[in-house]
């Protein structure tokens, strides 16, 4: 049986499989592919353009066909099926039993490059990675433009296949780290990678931790900075951002776009972010500690006015704080989930709940509303979504410790957090190292 017939039989249930015969002079070639991935009319006219009938007299048909793309005559049948699934066009010349896979004119299945959705930048480039790996790698190449940029692409999965690209700068990356990374990836090529959790398993990193091993970025300039600092940047097909491995403490408050400002402002901005991070962590715990455990730390005037504002509040400070924090978390989650046309309604209703109404109903004190506003504002200063999620969780740890042990508990909670961060490692690289590998 010919290759074309065999393939047709394999794809008999896929009604987007197309097989066409093209007559070129005396010769007939068969082209086949999936019409959902390939723009057929364009592709066929492209092939007609490539093969001039006049040339056929001078050249052997086989040579002409092989010149169109990669010769895969010697490939096993499964490999040909994979080529088709990936969106390649197979050209078969039955007479010489030649089979070639070539890059067709594709259907546009991904959005064009747009502004980042989760990260905003006002002082830097505004292009963002999207779901197409080719676009992402292309963007990275455009931004990096270095001779020692190396890319390795792996195909994961046995039934559902997905591509992962690892990129790094040969001169900047720590060879030991690179070797561990590549070994980890190559030893688990049979696993499926559809999301980041799957990928964490592939890398062999533990899933039960509160800090992220890698952080995601939508911005090519951040990926470029990571590469320059000796880190690996990974792309997963269909995942609209780059993974930067390993994630470091500096990623909490440093962003590449800061460097477009005058150095003084860069430093000031980063200090501001650090202050914001500390505020988010400490503020709820501090409120509870000061109100219920250590009111002696406050100035008398403040203590007196807080006592006044809590006059008819029925719950202890910790319950009151938890109540509002949970409403706040719900609100933040709801706003992500909702379409943008309903979003403002939720914001408005949330504003009423978290605002004066709760105070008027004597459910919470005035000061707590201020504390809550401060937390919400300052939590937005942290760079990166994964990092802000860590902070969201850590503040509860501090809150509970503060409720039980007051200011002392808050302090010991911070010590626990510091030691947790200090002990966190990704592929033996400590989390608390500086932005660049040692010796740099």
């Amino acid at each position, binding site marked *: 049986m010919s290759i074309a017939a065999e393939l047709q039989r394999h794809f008999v249930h896929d009604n987007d499989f197309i097989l066409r015969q093209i007559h070129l002079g005396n010769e007939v070639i068969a082209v086949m592919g999936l019409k959902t991935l390939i723009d057929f009319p364009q592709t066929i006219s492209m092939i007609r353009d490539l093969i001039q009938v006049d040339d056929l007299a001078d050249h052997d048909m086989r040579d002409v066909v092989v010149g169109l793309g990669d010769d895969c005559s010697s490939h096993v049948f499964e490999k040909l099926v994979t080529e088709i699934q990936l969106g390649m066009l197979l050209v078969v010349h039955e007479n010489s039993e030649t089979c070639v896979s070539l890059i067709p004119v594709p259907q546009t299945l991904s959005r064009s490059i747009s502004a980042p959705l989760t990260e905003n930048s006002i002082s830097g480039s505004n292009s963002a990675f999207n779901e197409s790996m080719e676009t992402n790698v292309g963007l990275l190449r455009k931004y990096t433009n270095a001779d020692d940029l190396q890319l390795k692409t792996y195909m994961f999965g046995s039934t559902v296949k997905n591509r992962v690209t690892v990129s790094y700068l040969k001169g900047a990356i720590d060879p030991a780290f690179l070797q561990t990374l590549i070994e980890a990836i190559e030893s688990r090529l049979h696993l499926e990678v559809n999301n980041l959790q799957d990928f964490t398993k592939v890398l062999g990193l533990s899933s039960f931790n509160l800090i992220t091993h890698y952080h995601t970025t939508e911005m090519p300039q951040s990926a470029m900075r990571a590469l320059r600092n000796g880190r690996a940047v990974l792309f997963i097909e269909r995942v609209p951002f780059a993974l930067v491995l390993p994630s470091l403490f500096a990623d909490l408050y440093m962003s590449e776009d800061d460097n477009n400002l005058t150095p003084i402002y860069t430093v000031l901005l980063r200090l501001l972010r650090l202050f914001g991070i500390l505020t988010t962590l400490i503020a709820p715990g501090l409120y509870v500690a000061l109100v219920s455990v250590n009111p002696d730390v406050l100035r008398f005037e403040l*203590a007196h006015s807080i006592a006044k504002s809590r006059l008819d509040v029925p719950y202890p400070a910790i319950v009151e704080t938890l109540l509002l924090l949970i409403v706040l978390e719900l609100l933040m989650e709801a706003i992500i989930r909702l379409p943008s046309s309903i979003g403002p309604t939720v914001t408005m209703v949330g504003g009423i709940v978290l605002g004066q109404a709760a105070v008027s109903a004597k459910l919470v004190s005035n000061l707590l509303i201020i504390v809550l506003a401060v937390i919400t504002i300052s939590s937005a200063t942290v760079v990166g979504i994964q990092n802000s999620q860590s902070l969201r969780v850590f503040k509860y740890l501090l809150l509970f410790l503060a409720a039980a042990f007051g200011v002392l508990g808050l302090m010991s909670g911070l010590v626990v957090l510091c030691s947790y961060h200090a002990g966190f490692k990704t592929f033996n690289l400590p989390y608390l190292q500086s932005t660049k590998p040692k010796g740099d």
Partner: protein
Amino acid sequence: MKMMLMRMVAVVLLFLLSGCWDNKDINHRSLPIAMGVSYNQGSYTIYLDIPSVTEDEEKIQIISDHGDSINEVIDHISMNMESQVDLLHLKVILVDKAFAKHGLSEGIASIIRSRYIAPKTMFVICDEPLDHFFQHIDASSTDDGTAIYDYFQKNAGWSPDIAYTPTWRIFRSIHSYTNDVVIPMIKSGDSTVIKSTGSAIMKNGKMVGKLTNEETLLYNVFNGVNTQGKIEVMGHATVQIVSSRIGNRSSLEQDQPRLRSTVHLKITVMDTRGNPSMVLIKKELQELVTREFMLLFQKVQKAGADVFGLGQHFRDDLTRPQLARWRTDYLPNMKVDLHVKTIVRNTGNLKARK
């Protein structure tokens, strides 16, 4: 796995054993701002000045009770009140003269050791019966009742002719050979809430004498307290002290301690009478300060209380048994040479003649 279980148990125990349910929220605590302690033949009467926590009206609540010890009375008051009395925010402790003369050592020791009251709490002697004083405060309070607190706040109502003595200094004076303190004395004022009536010289926690407000100012200058903005009236001029600084040099000659002190004063001239020269103003100020200080020093020497902490300068010259006799043997023999050096800031409000 076992390790994980142990950790989880530890975390659970941390919260189960924390005792956090005993924490009282701030609105369930009474925060007295001033406490009055009056002593009468072994029995204490305690007055608490508690700014009341209500939304509509700002006033204070005066609560009093009596018993055999300070702690007993406070416990008693706490029992009878709807919230727990929390002395952590206590800012001022008032004692009556009888208590001060009887000796504060036991009261101070219990305050410092119990740690319920901050050691930085101001200590004040009331120059009139405490019940009268607190009645007056209650009647004249218009704000949230923090008048007595503000009166001793350095960033509010305190002025340099009032002594500034936190509790820990009295504790130190009781246990030190070479340090005594003065405690401010107040009474209810006629048109103001509080009136200062000078300060009490304390020797080992007992009141042995009294200083006027002018003498207290000098005391503060000598102790290096910033007396900025203080106005001094002399024969020919009124001057304002802009800053003051003191340098001391000590020597021990045949068991007679000598101290050379130089007070540097920076002043500006506020107004003059009869167009005096700057030299004259300087000379007058120097004479005035020296004379007043010498009188003050003699008074202190006579009382045998080292309120200036002069003995501190001789601690490395004397052995410990000798230091124990500092107040009785050395201080009365001590000689102090005081030099006042004045700089007139002549570009201030008034330009004086050279």
